[in-house]
């Protein structure tokens, strides 16, 4: 994942006559009435695009009608492996519970949008958490993990922070302070809304 913020140009695709392709596609795909019937009737660009879109959606619908079934060997393999473990034996990681689609947060502005990579947000959150004196470090859940996971939906961010707390510090106090620091840092430095920060005190650090 790239570690920088990129500015994306989200201009809609338009025909030479200025009509948005997405509008025409919606008309064909969702069988909607045309939004600009008079223009369409006489515009060669619209006519050409509509012909292509009608042909394309004929094929899309044909593909959707194709019968597909899951091969029996997949069913058997799933059942065999399920027998080896009980449900609930492993918590679904956060990424299974929330959509992983967007790996950028999105801020819409009147003259363009700003996307902020997830890695930027996690790095900000990581530094904010480590600044709290009672925190000895972040505690990855498994190798390769960072101890921080997040879900973004446009300008809303939810984070889970897994901590190693220094022995002698009050765990709930450290957790509350980390939450405040992370929310402040993320909101100030990215302009995003930190909707929720869950803190997991995952371990104690013996070095006090």
């Amino acid at each position, binding site marked *: 994942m790239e570690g920088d913020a990129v500015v994306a140009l*989200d201009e*809609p*695709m338009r025909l030479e006559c200025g009509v*948005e*392709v*997405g*509008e025409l*596609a*919606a008309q064909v*795909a969702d069988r909607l009435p045309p939004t600009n019937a008079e223009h369409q009737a006489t515009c060669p660009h619209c006519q050409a*695009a509509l012909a*292509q*879109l009608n*042909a*394309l959606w004929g*094929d*899309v*619908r*044909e*593909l*959707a009608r*194709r*019968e*597909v*079934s*899951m*091969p029996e*060997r*997949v*069913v058997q*393999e*799933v*059942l065999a*492996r*399920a*027998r080896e*473990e*009980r*449900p*609930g*034996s*492993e*918590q*679904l990681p956060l*990424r*299974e*519970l*929330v*959509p*992983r*689609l*967007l790996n950028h947060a999105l801020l819409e502005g009147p003259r363009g949008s700003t996307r902020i990579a997830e890695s930027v947000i996690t790095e900000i959150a990581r530094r904010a958490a480590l600044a709290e004196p009672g925190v000895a470090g972040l505690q990855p859940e498994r190798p390769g993990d960072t101890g921080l996971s997040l*879900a973004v*939906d*446009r300008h809303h961010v939810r984070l889970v922070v897994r901590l190693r707390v220094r022995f002698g510090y009050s765990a709930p106090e450290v957790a509350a302070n980390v939450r405040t620091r992370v929310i402040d840092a993320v909101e100030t430095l990215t302009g995003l809304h930190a909707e929720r920060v869950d803190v997991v005190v995952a371990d104690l650090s013996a070095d006090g």
Partner: protein
Amino acid sequence: MVLATDDRLLIQAASAGDERAFEVLVRRHGARVYRVALRMLGSPEEAEEAAQDAWLAAWRGLPGFRRESAFSTWLYRIVTNRCLGVGSGRAEVEPLEHDLPDPGPRTDEQAELRARLAAVTRGILALTPEQRVPIVLRELEGLPYDEIAAVLDVSVQAVKSRIHRARASLWRETRSWR
């Protein structure tokens, strides 16, 4: 869905470790999970793996399944997430046609249809994941916008605008050979 009540009991039993209840769920909803994986990934081998992973994730996660979403919505979410995990560096996959049933003696017309459907699938694979998921759910699974919003956990408006852009991209991707 008509079978919602049945599903609820099966889900309850399966969460408690009842493998037979789970098997019924897998058989009942298997096609949808595999189909989405196949459309998302293009290759049957990868789709089988993703479907298998998704079902195991569902088995492990069943006790945490929250009733406020439909079971199918939850499954769609798990399988699309699995596919996105496989999906880094997609696009170069050169798949398909082989997921179409053998038409027997081929006519030119059938051959042409197969080629066109293969091209549609290639067009879908060329979309960004952000666009591919909603377009597969909308155009191939036929889900309403609000259910897609529930799968992706975004607003209906966000789903509409992604699908809007995705359709335009699909048109651009497939226009050249038409």
